């Protein structure tokens, strides 16, 4: 999809249709993914993302389009998700509570003007992650990729690789532990600093 990575706007500009499309192509997959994990519902997540962009289009003449624009989109998606959970009367009370508890985790990505989520979706993070995964023993990496990238269930991975499900689970657990240790917030900081200087 055609878009310019560094599209930004001065305050006084309004968004033209082609700029809107560019922004949409760039951010829609991120916003839709964000809403999907909060709501634990793919269709509802897509609907929320559509709403965010429809609102953005309606308010295109008055929106502040400075640096905070990116985090504004996520903030708007987050609050819509919370509304959605609270309004959804069909779900029982304790289902709402557990969704809201998990949502806090995702809200924390919006702190500091959305810096954490920006980093999460940056190429640097992806690269660091891939490099770290390369350090893993091959079998562990394979198991992890099948779950994480291909979205397979532990049971399916077990069948495919002909290993006990317990082994699959322990591979994933150990990978998470490894990543937790190695993907520290300071890694992010160093990466960001390096990118600024070179």
């Amino acid at each position, binding site marked *: *999809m*055609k878009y310019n990575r560094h599209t930004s706007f001065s305050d006084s500009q309004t968004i033209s*249709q082609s700029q809107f*499309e560019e922004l*949409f*192509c760039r951010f*829609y*997959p*991120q916003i*839709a*993914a*964000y809403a*999907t*994990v909060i709501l*634990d*519902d793919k269709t509802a997540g*897509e609907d929320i*993302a*559509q709403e965010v*962009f*429809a609102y953005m*289009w*309606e308010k295109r003449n008055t929106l502040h389009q400075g640096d905070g624009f990116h985090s504004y989109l996520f903030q708007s998606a987050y609050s819509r998700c919370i509304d959605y959970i609270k309004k959804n009367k069909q779900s*029982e009370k*304790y*289902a709402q509570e*557990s*969704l809201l*508890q*998990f949502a806090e*985790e*995702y809200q924390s*990505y919006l702190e500091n003007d959305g810096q954490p989520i920006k980093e*999460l*979706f940056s190429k640097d*993070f*992806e690269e660091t*992650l891939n490099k770290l995964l390369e350090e893993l023993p091959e079998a562990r990496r394979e198991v992890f990729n099948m*779950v*994480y*990238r291909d*979205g*397979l*269930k*532990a049971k399916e991975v077990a069948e495919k690789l002909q290993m006990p*499900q317990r082994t*699959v*689970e*322990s591979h*994933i*657990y150990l990978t*998470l*532990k490894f*990543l*937790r240790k190695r*993907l520290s917030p300071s890694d992010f900081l160093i990466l960001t600093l390096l990118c600024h200087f070179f």
Partner: protein
Amino acid sequence: MDFDFSLLIKYLSQSLSITERQELEDWRNYSSENSHLFSEASKLRLLGEYTRRNTVSETAVALSRIQEKIRRRTIRHRLFRVSQYAAAIALIISLSIFGLIQLTAEKYTVITVAENESIKKIHLSDGSMVWLSASSELSIPKSFSASHRQVELKGKAFFDIEKMPESSFMVTSPYMNVKVTGTSFNLSVDDTNQQVETILVSGKVILQDRQGKDIFAMSPGEKVIYTAQNNNYTISTVDVNTLTSWHLNQITFEKATLREIVNKLSLIYDVNINLESKKLADRRYRYVINREETLQEVLDILSYLAPIHYRIEGNEVFITE
């Protein structure tokens, strides 16, 4: 604490039931180590969801959905405003707005594959599929009209077009158009030489000039090269599978010498290959490799085809008789 780790794994890629979510929440609150691990899993879950979603086709579908939504909202919004005025004026205004929207709706979604990018597989809304090669561009209208489907190509693509008797499909280029019924074919538009190459795998296509006049009806297995400058067509019969296998991420060698194959392999796998037999170097083979295969797998198959032995030493490969 007895905890079922499959929950954490399930959380990474799928939905949890309410009880499972509660169980995971309890586990998360049990220790700070658990809560950190949960945090990591949440990040990966978000990133995984994003990676699975971040495809050209999904974004294109979502984009056309929002355009439709905006269009409907605009009409509703404007209509609401003008309802205060006389009905006649309202009618005129809404008609002209509608006309304006119709014009802007003609806009295209442009899908580009950069020189260093891999092939993109595009699902069109009518069920047709297009494999777009590197350094290529495909313009698709926001929505196909009921009676006519049209896309524009720069560069190279493989088309597998869904047959629809009531709706024709057309691929346009600055030099020549291809009119399609249900079929699969390969098309390369070369701007430097102003040439268009069409290879028909199955079905039927009709080549047309820019004015829409029929020039040539192609049969399967044929290749037609059209040169715009001198308005010249060259027709030949070709091995279509070899020439169109690129879209399956395969590289096909047809009657290639072992030296040619080896040179290509060293480029693909970034290794230095020493072919230590002059006699073998000029022998010719037909050989297909899949991009996903490892060097070792490829060499194994090659040593099956040709009377060779190989050994890999780091970045060096030695091939002997």
